[in-house]
């Protein structure tokens, strides 16, 4: 069974308005500022696996007519749960994907001709080579003494895990120690340079 959560929140206009009713009515109608609508949805199956995930950010551009804003607000209010557009075909969702969602948002307004601009999102980047260099730099900041202690405790190997991609990389002792020594040497040199300047 899909767990579906939908929560709608009233907009927070920055203008002072006299009544709550007015505020609701004019949620997307103030032309003095840029108006946006943001929706995010993640649908999980019974086992807690991601079934569908998607969202939209709609922005009213300057000189947007009031009729268009009214139509847009009507379209947004009548949308089903945003994740339903990305559910597998045959499930209860609309399954229209990004094109279907865009069409639903621009119903009665019309889309500009052409396919629009698209890009393929991806998780990352945590390329292994770059990751390795960043990890060595991070370990070097610990200092030689701490690196030595960590290596001794782990049998001469230091394993580091990237918190973003969860990839673990193991380093031989000498590689990390060398970097720590270089960092420490650099620090000492810059300190000595600073002291020299102070004396002068």
């Amino acid at each position, binding site marked *: 069974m899909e*767990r*579906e*959560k939908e*929560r*709608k*929140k009233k*907009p*927070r206009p*920055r203008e002072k308005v006299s009544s709550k009713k007015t505020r609701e009515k004019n*949620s*997307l109608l103030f032309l003095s*500022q*840029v*108006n*946006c*609508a*943001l*929706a*995010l*949805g*993640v*649908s*999980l199956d019974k086992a*807690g696996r*991601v079934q569908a*995930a*998607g*969202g*939209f950010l*709609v*922005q*009213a*551009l300057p000189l947007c007519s009031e009729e268009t804003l009214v139509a*847009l607000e009507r379209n947004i209010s009548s949308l089903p*749960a*945003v*994740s339903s557009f*990305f*559910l*597998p*075909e045959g499930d209860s969702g609309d399954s229209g*994907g*990004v*094109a279907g969602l*865009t069409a639903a*948002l*621009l119903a009665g307004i019309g*889309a*500009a001709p052409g396919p*629009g*601009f*698209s*890009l393929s*999102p*991806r*998780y*990352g*980047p*945590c390329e292994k080579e770059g990751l390795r260099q960043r990890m060595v730099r991070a370990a070097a900041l610990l200092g030689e003494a701490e690196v030595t202690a960590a290596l001794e405790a782990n049998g001469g190997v230091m394993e580091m895990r990237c918190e973003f991609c*969860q990839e673990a990389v193991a380093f031989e002792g000498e590689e990390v120690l060398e970097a720590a020594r270089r960092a420490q040497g650099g620090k000492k040199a810059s300190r000595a340079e600073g002291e020299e300047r102070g004396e002068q």
Partner: protein
Amino acid sequence: MTAGARSGAAPPPMLPFKAAASRRRRRAFPLFASLRSDEVLRTLSEASEISVLAVDGTRLVSEATKRHGTAPTASAALGRALLGGLLMSAFKGEGEATQITFKGTGPLGGLQVVAEATGAVKGRVDNPSADPPLRNDGKLDVGTAVGGGVLAIVRSREGGGEAYTGLTQIVSGEIADDLAHYLATSEQVRTRGESGS
């Protein structure tokens, strides 16, 4: 007997490498995941009055939750934050990155997302096993998992330029509401937020 039957059975047909790889992928992911790929689509309305940015990040969020081994509520929170980061950074200037940090007081702890204009996005949570009880209406309680606290958003550009940092209060912990609140108060872009999982 079984061995005999096995040896008598016709061997499975050999597949070209590409077809075999495709079959392996289909086994690894649910069927629907292989049918469509993730996409961010930007469309203008006919009269260029409205800009629509729509994202399908099913596979991306699925990968993130697998990498981090998140519990359902943490999955929803991380997924929403990844999608929000994507929408806020996609199609921005070259080398521009958006870093979203929820410093929440709830069981989830901190939640961090880094998104680039090219569509690359990554994230992490302090406590991937955070999974508070469902709300009374049977929905995942992302708001409680995140808790109160501060939302920090840093917009930076590769190779120089001062980074723009905005700080706002976490209003509900439901991610979309908080990002909408940030856009309204910090970037002064009036936004309506909606979250679902």
